[in-house]
């Protein structure tokens, strides 16, 4: 008799707890949803601004009209570009015609893991600028590739597969024309190879790059 009462009580208490928890969950969800509703447009705008800000250096002063984020092309592996992770291409249009392609690729054979590189390529196959986005190279040696540490990456400005010619795309020590970094040759070799492969990819696939439908991150 008393056991039955107790059982009924505990059942009621479970229901009560569930209802309270459910109501609180609804209240909290409403709170988050409201905040999200007001914050989302601003967050979207910030993301777009941040992307444009970080791509600006490699745009080389091209006056573009398209929304960069919508021109994004994500290439899953295998994509033929350097790196063991999906590559990203941003397509830049000026006056309705293709003006440049910005590649985010990674050099897989850096001294300390992959090096993420941003490369801007004009339609004639020449480079606007190269920027290192992410690396783990040794401070004081390999980290000279960073734009904030040295001017090393400036030597790729305006370079293409014809100037210097294909055979000279290596550091001086290997018979090429590019400077190495004092005390570090693995890092520059990896980057130069990645840039060269990117230019070759662009040369071979220019039409396909600009014809493909946009594919942003899912």
């Amino acid at each position, binding site marked *: 008799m008393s056991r039955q009462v107790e059982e009924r009580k505990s059942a009621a208490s479970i229901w009560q*707890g569930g209802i*309270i928890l459910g109501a*609180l969950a609804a209240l*909290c969800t409403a709170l*988050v949803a409201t*905040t999200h509703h007001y914050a*989302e447009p601003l*967050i979207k705008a*910030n993301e777009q601004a941040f992307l444009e800000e970080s791509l600006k250096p490699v745009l080389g002063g091209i006056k573009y009209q398209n929304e960069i984020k919508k021109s994004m092309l994500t290439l899953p592996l295998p994509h033929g570009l350097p790196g063991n992770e999906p590559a990203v291409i941003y397509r830049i249009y000026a006056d309705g015609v293709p003006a440049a392609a910005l590649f985010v690729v990674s050099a897989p054979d850096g001294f300390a893991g992959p090096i993420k590189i941003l490369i801007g390529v004009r339609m004639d196959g020449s480079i606007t600028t190269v920027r290192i986005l992410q690396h783990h190279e040794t401070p004081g040696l390999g980290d000279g590739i960073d734009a904030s540490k040295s001017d090393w990456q400036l030597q790729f400005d305006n370079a293409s597969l014809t100037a210097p010619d294909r055979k000279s795309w290596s550091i001086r020590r290997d018979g090429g024309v590019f400077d190495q970094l004092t005390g570090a040759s693995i890092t520059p070799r990896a980057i130069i190879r990645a840039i060269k492969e990117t230019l070759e990819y662009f040369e071979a696939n220019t039409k396909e790059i600009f014809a493909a439908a946009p594919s942003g991150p899912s």
Partner: protein
Amino acid sequence: MSRRTTIAEKFHTGLWTDNPGLVQLLGLCPLLAVTTSFVNGLGLGIATLFVLTGSNMLVSATRRLIRSEIRIPMYVLIISSFVTCIELLTDAWFPHLGRSLGIFIPLIVTNCSIVARAEIFASKHRVIESAADGLVMGAGFALLLCALGAFRELVGSGSLFSRLDMLFGGEPSPGFAFFDSGFLLAILPPGAFFSLALAVAAKNAIDRRRQLERRNRRSRLVNTSG
């Protein structure tokens, strides 16, 4: 249950005698990770303060519904929704700060001092008192974050108050630069532990000196009267 305390006493408790970071040593994960500069410390401090005040108020408002067997899920639910709101607001209005603090804003959820205040204080006090408790405890935590951030920035990077624009807008500001390259260790993870240890030691030293002074005064009183 509610012992009446004056506002001054309350502040003294939150900022000094019962400081969540310095005395209770709670929330060390964000405390040690983000205090590489003053502005980071201030940003996370303010975010934590808002979460703590908000969650304290909501826990207190629903305290009559809270039952012991489901109180922890309720706290988690309340705290995580406030943290999500704060994260959204930071991304919307202070995008650079959000980027700089990164994962540590969502990680406020795991700051034990927030659950601790909900359990110890907010679930047993009125909304106003709980809000005050959240503000004061949050301020204590934020002050410690700022102090550690300023110290590590000064020693490690040789500057102070750099990039305040991340919080207050305007052009990127270098702050005050005192010397070129600082003592790098200070902004590396070990520096966080050293700085916190120094802060705790300093607080204990001050407390001890005060205690000695009080004792001296008392013995002098005894001497003169005797």
